[in-house]
């Protein structure tokens, strides 16, 4: 009997880091896109969030986050196919 602790450990580490990183990234993207919509509702959002450049920045950031997530999904499909 030969339990491959190293493989189990790396599965644990890689899964943990990847999951948390991906979920974190995706959440950042979702939040970045969502916040401007929220301001009319409550009126107490981030200061100055309504200006165009900040809005564009948020959108760009969201795109970056989602792009990275998409890359991860593509890598996942690559792993399944390979």
């Amino acid at each position, binding site marked *: 009997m030969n339990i491959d602790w190293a493989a189990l450990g790396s*599965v*644990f580490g890689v899964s943990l880091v990847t999951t948390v990183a991906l*979920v974190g990234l995706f959440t950042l993207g*979702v939040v970045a896109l969502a916040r401007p919509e929220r301001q009319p509702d409550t009126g107490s959002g981030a200061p100055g969030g309504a200006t165009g450049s900040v809005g564009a920045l948020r959108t760009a950031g969201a795109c970056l986050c989602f792009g990275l*997530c998409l890359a991860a999904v593509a890598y996942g499909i690559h792993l399944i196919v390979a």
Partner: protein
Amino acid sequence: MEHITLLLAIVIVTALVFDFTNGFHDTANAMATTISTGALKPKVAVGMSAVLNLVGAFLSVEVAKTISGGLINEQGIRTEVIFAALVGAILWNLFTWLLGLPSSSSHALFGGLIGATLMSVGASGVNGGVVVTKVLIPALAAPVVAGVAAMLATKLTYRIGRNTDDRATAKGYRAGQIASAGLVSLAHGTNDAQKTMGVITLALVTGGVLAPGSNPPVWVIVSAGLAIALGTYLGGWRIIRTMGTGLTDLRPQQGFAAQTSAATVILASSHLGFSLSTTQSCSGAVMGAGLGRKGGVVRWSTASRMFIAWGLTLPAAGLVAAGAEFLTGQGTWGVTAVAVLLIAGSGGIWLASRRRPVDHTNVTEGMDAAAGTREGAAGSPAPAGIVTTAIAAVSPPPPAGVAQDLSATIHAPAVPGAPTGPAGEPARTATV
């Protein structure tokens, strides 16, 4: 020769039926959280999962080298052993489905193979050490790994999004969840359809139809892919309900975190050389996500019934398979008897499921109410079933009694009407 051909045909049909129950049983892994959070409508979800399973079956051309991963000695394995193993795995899959409990189809198949091998050639055919490293340790590790990852991810996503309105973000989370669920479906199609292809190929090789080491013929790939996709599409709604709403109540954030964790663990484990069960990873991820939300609860009564089912999967499937192998060893009439018992048992379970049907219309209905009534309804019969199985598992079996024992456990009353239901099922798969 004629006999071998008939037996071979029976084994192939049985393997496809197992493939079907596998898809049917494991729809929940990919789609339970997606359905319960409302990211996709139930029918759309199972349809998408079915298509991705089918695609997955064709994606990887690498043949499953061994069907048991070294658990048993596959050299000189007899076709009857494969048949008996499949019978054990199918009946256990259907039984856990009736109880609405997610359990690993691979472990059921492993258990069946071990039981049939023990009966056929004795303990020398089974590698005890591999049972620990390939089944026991992964079974303990999978829910922990996926659960911890999902819990931390859930905490993180709530922390980052704490100032955001839930309604504004729900759509985004749902999209993310669908992507993760798609990956799980695709991976499932690749892994599990391949397992069936491996079984059929092995049966063809042992039957002398294929040369050893050959690739599965195209019809094997196509039929295995179709069987798993059909099973997925019909959807094991009972298991979906348990996993989606029975273990914990999931919000979009949690569903997303759980599904992403499950997808990551499945892909990481199968590519870093420490295979973890899909079912156990997904269940663990759902529970982890449940614990990760402030005020989230995991219904431990449901969870512990699930854990008991996990523990029983290997011995129970093994016991049934051992009984089936004993009967097939008696000659042609034994094989026929096992086939009849399989059909009667499946039919009985199916009829029993009709008493309290769960389908796409009520799969998420009134989560708490459903869970409540289910507890009440299943409360008495379910533990009884588990206890009976446990007793059957513990008592040293006079093997001839096992099969009878089993059909007794699985509903004596239903047997008279049985032939109609099950006759349809294998036939359907056979036409596939």
